[in-house]
């Protein structure tokens, strides 16, 4: 059977492989190489060693500031999104009237693209701030909290769905047993429900973590880094380095490699975390 299939190698794998090579393998290898070069197009690269990596932190285009902003944004958005999503999931697993309608409505923002909802919220927030004669780009605080609100608006419904699935998987006798033993609903929550949905919590934490950390579209649409790049996140900083100023392509590529390494570390942490959980069970 394996032998017969092998003869069909070309039909089964080659179309995907060609596209994969064009979209990923070649650009990835070129990208790694170019991060050590000075260039303006892929054709005129000149080897400069680790120069770009040094420049990434020193050339004054705010890479470290963007890293700080991204880290602060990620921490706050992960915490708020997961608390709200879990609280709403608890409320929606009590068999109240209209549960399905609420679920449908709450999940909807997740389908709208980052650019479209970024501008929608920009208009909304500016309309509110206009009453106080200011705009979202006048103070980095507004941009930061605007982004947090936007991210909550978009992602709470998504995480809520995962938490609901987790909560519904808890055997009902477990909760009834706790009740018979005289546990208050707070105790049931802390001692039974939360430990039982630990795997959902892990999934949601890492999903919100990587989505917040890699955020680009929403950041570009809502403030585009204004004022003076104070609300610029890492992905946008890399984009601006590439396309904002000629001669800095190599630095942009070096920043992209650093960005990739951080994201890969997060992903590996998730993998080892999930694996260790699986062993325990």
């Amino acid at each position, binding site marked *: 059977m394996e032998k017969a299939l092998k003869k069909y190698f070309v039909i089964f794998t080659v179309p995907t492989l060609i596209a*994969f090579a064009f*979209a990923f393998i*070649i650009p990835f290898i070129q990208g790694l190489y170019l991060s050590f070069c000075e260039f303006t197009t892929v054709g005129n690269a000149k080897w400069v060693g680790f120069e770009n990596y040094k420049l990434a932190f020193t050339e004054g285009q705010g890479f470290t500031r963007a890293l700080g902003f991204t880290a602060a944004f990620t921490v706050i958005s992960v915490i708020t999104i997961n608390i709200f999503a879990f609280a709403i999931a608890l409320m929606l697993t009590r068999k109240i009237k209209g549960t399905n309608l609420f679920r449908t409505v709450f*999940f*909807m923002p997740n*389908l709208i693209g980052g650019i479209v*909802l970024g*501008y929608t919220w920009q*208009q909304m927030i500016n309309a509110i701030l206009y009453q106080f004669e200011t705009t979202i780009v006048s103070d980095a605080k507004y941009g930061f909290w605007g982004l947090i609100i936007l991210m909550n608006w978009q992602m709470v419904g998504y995480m809520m769905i995962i938490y609901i699935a987790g909560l519904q998987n808890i055997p009902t006798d477990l909760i009834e047993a706790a009740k018979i033993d005289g546990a208050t609903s707070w105790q049931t929550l802390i001692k039974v429900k939360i430990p039982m949905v630990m795997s959902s919590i892990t999934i949601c934490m890492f999903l919100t973590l990587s989505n917040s950390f890699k955020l680009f579209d929403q950041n570009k649409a809502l403030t585009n880094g204004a004022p003076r790049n104070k609300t610029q996140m890492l992905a946008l900083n890399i984009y601006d380095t590439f396309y904002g100023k000629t001669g800095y392509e190599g630095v942009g590529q070096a920043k992209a490699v650093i960005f990739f390494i951080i994201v890969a570390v997060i992903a590996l942490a998730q993998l080892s975390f999930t694996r260790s959980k699986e062993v325990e069970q």
Partner: protein
Amino acid sequence: MIQSKKTKTTNALIFIILCLVGVFVLYPLFFILNNSFKGKLFISKDPFSLPTAETFAGLTNYVNGLIKTGLLSAIGWSFFITIFSVILLILFTSMTAYYLTRVKEKWTQALYYMFVFSMIVPFQMVMFTMSSLADKFHLKNPVGMCILYLGFGAGLSVFMFAGFIKSVPIDIEEAAMIDGCNPLQNFFKVVFPILKPTAITVAILNAMWIWNDFLLPYLVIGISTKYKTIPVVVQMLVGSNGNKDMGALMAMLVLSIIPIVIFYLTCQKYIIEGVVAGAVKG
């Protein structure tokens, strides 16, 4: 009895909280819909009230916006690119995943891990080199976009298909082979029908991503061709002119959201299931 009375008040309280959350979720959408019907000069002055006889602008914003941006053609191209990319992805990555799972050799293993690896690489890492490669090989058109989406979406899709194929018993396939099926017939008549639930999940995840994707079409197709997609047009409308026509912007935002809302309301069950399955496996 006391217990149930207490539960009743808590439930009523929760119902009110949920309604407030619902208002928070829906209000931004109502906000753009409401303002899209006002004259452009009235929007910044009085953004929260309903249109009055004085401020009501009918469909002027929609007409102006459509003429200025060419959003209708962008909706068309977004549909084209999304649908054909998803078809290519489902067809080819399921075949590749099948081959990589059933033929167990060192290089198929290595390739599989390469696909998995590509899932964690952020787009910024390859955006410059990929768009210059696309330029060199004349992929700066809708068909080229579909090929790039096949390549960039292959990681998640192969991963999800392979995960499912591993659980398909090999006996049925062997029976089909003995009955004289060649591997291609075997795949499409026996294996693919079993893959249908995974195929729906993969299709939904990719469709949502491609429909909303901004940076790839912005960099590859660019802003000066006629093949712009919806996010690119929306970005241009805001980014290009300093003197913004807010009425047109509101109207175009509304038109961009309508197709997604219709899609969501018609396939809600599959979308929610698909997204959860994708989250748990990815």
